[in-house]
Structures are given as structure tokens and as C-alpha cells.
């Protein structure tokens, strides 16, 4: 605070000669008028600043923001509905595609099965043919083998008879061999 002495007359009753307060400055009646006057000026100034400029502006900004938010929410709602629709369409497409794939797979399977069956049948036929041919060949071979055995047996029997000192005509030996082979 001010320490140099000031003029008592000018400073008034509420301040001593060193600029210190006498009593409570709040209760000094000399200063009331000044404070009240400037308080009223200040309050009126703030009131006009607020009611003319600031409050309508802030109110409109808040309202505008509220409107923007509401619009955005509505737009978001719209987009959400669209998204849901798109999802449904996508799901449907997916299901269709899956069904198509199933169908194609089934058709392919059927085709392959048919081809396979045909091929198997053909192969069976070929096998049967080959088996029949082999059968025939085997029976021919067997027949010729039988004949050979008979001839060999006749020859052998004749040779044995001759070796034993007997004589036998070919007719008798072959008849005996045939009878023996049948029996």
C-alpha cells in the first residue's frame, strides 16, 4: 500500500495519512456512491452485451448444433436401414450362389457317375469278352492236350508191350488204352 503521506482533506475520512484503512473500507459511506454508480453501469453494460449479442448467438449455435445432430442421426438411421437392406440382399445372393454351387456340384457328380458307369460297363464287357476268349483257348488247348496224351499213351503202351516180348497189333492196344482212359 501507499506509504507516503497523502492529504487528509483529499483522501477523505476513511483513509489515514499513510494511506492505510481506518476501520473497514467496506463501511466507508463516502465510496458507496461511486461503487454503486459504476456497478450499475457495469451490470447494464453486461446485460446489453448478453441480451443483444451473446445469448442469442450462443442459443442459435446450440440450436443449430442440435439440428445438425438430429439431421445426422436421421441420416445415420437412413444409412443403417440401407445397410440392413444391403445385408439382406447380400445374404440372399449368398444363399442363391450356394444353391447354384450345390446344383452344379450335383450335376457334375451325376455326369461323372454316368461316365464312370459307362466306363465300368465297357470294361466289364471287355473283360467278359477276354475271359470268354481265354476260356475257348483253354478248352482247345485242353482238348489237344487230351488227344496228345491219348496218342502218347497208345505209343507208350505199344512200346511197353513190345518190350515185354509180346506182340500186339495197334488196334488192340489203342482199344485197351481208350477203355482204360475212359474208365
Amino acid at each position, binding site marked *: *500500500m501507499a*506509504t507516503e503521506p*497523502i*492529504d487528509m482533506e*483529499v*483522501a*477523505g475520512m*476513511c*483513509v*489515514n*495519512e*499513510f*494511506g*492505510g*484503512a*481506518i*476501520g*473497514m*473500507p*467496506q*463501511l*466507508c459511506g*463516502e*465510496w*458507496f*456512491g*461511486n*461503487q*454503486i*454508480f*459504476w*456497478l*450499475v*453501469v*457495469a*451490470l447494464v*453494460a*453486461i*446485460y446489453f*452485451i*448478453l*441480451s443483444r*449479442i*451473446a*445469448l442469442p*448467438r*450462443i*442459443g*442459435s*449455435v*446450440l440450436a*443449430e*448444433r442440435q439440428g*445438425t445432430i438430429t439431421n445426422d442421426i436421421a441420416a445415420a438411421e437412413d444409412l443403417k436401414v440401407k445397410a440392413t437392406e444391403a445385408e439382406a440382399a447380400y445374404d440372399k445372393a449368398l444363399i442363391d450362389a450356394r444353391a447354384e454351387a450345390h446344383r452344379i456340384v450335383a450335376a457334375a457328380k451325376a455326369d461323372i457317375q454316368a461316365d464312370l458307369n459307362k466306363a465300368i460297363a465297357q470294361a466289364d464287357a471287355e473283360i467278359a469278352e477276354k475271359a470268354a476268349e481265354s476260356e475257348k483257348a483253354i478248352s482247345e488247348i485242353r482238348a489237344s492236350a487230351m488227344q496228345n496224351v491219348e496218342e502218347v499213351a497208345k505209343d507208350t503202351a505199344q512200346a511197353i508191350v513190345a518190350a515185354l516180348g509180346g506182340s500186339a497189333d495197334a488196334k488192340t492196344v489203342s482199344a485197351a488204352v481208350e477203355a482204360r482212359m475212359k474208365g
Partner: protein
Amino acid sequence: MAAEAHGEEAGGLVFHPMDQFIVKPFFGDGAVSWYTITNATVWMALAVLAVFALLVLGTSKRSVIPTRLQSVAELAYGFIYKMVEDICGKEGVKYFPYIMTLFMFIVFANFLGLLPMAFTPTSHIAVTAIMAFAVFFAVTILGFVKNGASFLGLFWVSSAPLALRPILALIEVISYFVRPVSHSIRLAGNMMAGHAVIKVFAGFAAIAAIAPLSVVAITAMYGLEILVSFIQAYVFTILTCVYLKDALHPHH
């Protein structure tokens, strides 16, 4: 009494906790007449400028996505608007600019007063009493204009037993007329008390041994004062709203 000794005690502890509240001319010396520009005037003007800066310059862009200053302004607007709407109801919204004026002035005068070497207009009874009495008279006149004689029903507690009602009415009347007194002294007293206590602690700093303690105490008090500055502005405003509600709906 103690004040006569001011200035003479050169050494030792010197407490002048009240000197910070002296009103003096801002330009030069001289008597304080009603139009003089004093330190009180200057700090009130700064409060007005601060309000202007926050609420007008801060919102000048009107951006939908607010800047920092604009969101503070919107926060203040929403805070007071909601308070008025919650307490006074829809009819009270008409008086929102008046209440906002009081709140912004008090809160900025309080906060600016916390700057070192500052003067706090709201620590003076003259200032707060004018605001409180303005609220009191406005609310009383409004009550009679809006409700006529039935405004007196505020004092007649119809839910009390009949025998008690006259006594209660007397108490209600007294408490009604004490309202502006407590309303103004609460604000001025809080501001004055905090500043005076800080000044007393500052006086202790003259002793080297307890100076650190004094600094800590000043810091703590300063933190408390920041809180008190806001709370007292809030309380002044909310009580204004409550009084306004009584004028608008006297039968609750």
C-alpha cells in the same frame, strides 16, 4: 482502533488486511466522488471486458464444432440456462438474461480479484447489497404483479396446523426480509474473508523462520479461494433462481 497505528510501526509484524479494500482514484489523487474512475471502476470494467471477450469474441465464429473458448461460453450458457429452467420452470426462462448477467459479473469479478494486486468489487457490501436488493425488489414486485394478493400466500403455510400458522407467518416474513441481507453479506463476506486471510498470512512472511509455512498457507488459501469464488457466484445465482421461483409459484 487498530488502524490508527498503521504506518507508524515500521518493524516487526505489520498487518494491514483491510488496506486492499480501499477505494481510490485510479488516475492521480483526489476525492472519490460518484463519477470518479476508481480502482473499483477499473476492475468492474475488466470484468465487463472479460465477459465480452468470452461470450462475444469467443463465439464470433459460430462454429458448429466449438473452439475451446466457445465451448467454455457454451458451457456457461448451458449451466445457467439449465439452472434457471430446473428451478424456475419454463416461465423462468424469460428472466434468464438477468440471471446470466449477475452470474457472469460475479464470477469474473471474483476471479479477477484473485490476481495479485487486484481489487475485488464483490468484496464490498455496497456492491453486493445493490445486487441483492435489486433481486429482492424485482422478485417482490414481480410476485405481486404476477400473483396479486395471493403472493402473500407465500407466508401462510397452509400445510401447518391452524394454530401455528400466524407464528410461522411471522417467521416467514422475517426470513423473507432477511433474504437480501444474507444474500449480499454471504458473497461480500466470503470474498473479504478469503482476501483478508491471505493478507494476514502474507504478513507472517516477514518472519524468516515461518516464511515458507506462510507461503504454503497462502498457496492453500489461494486454492480454496478459487473454489470459493466460483461457488459463491453459483450460490448467489442459484438463490436468485430460488427467490424468482417463489415469486412465480408462491404456493409451493
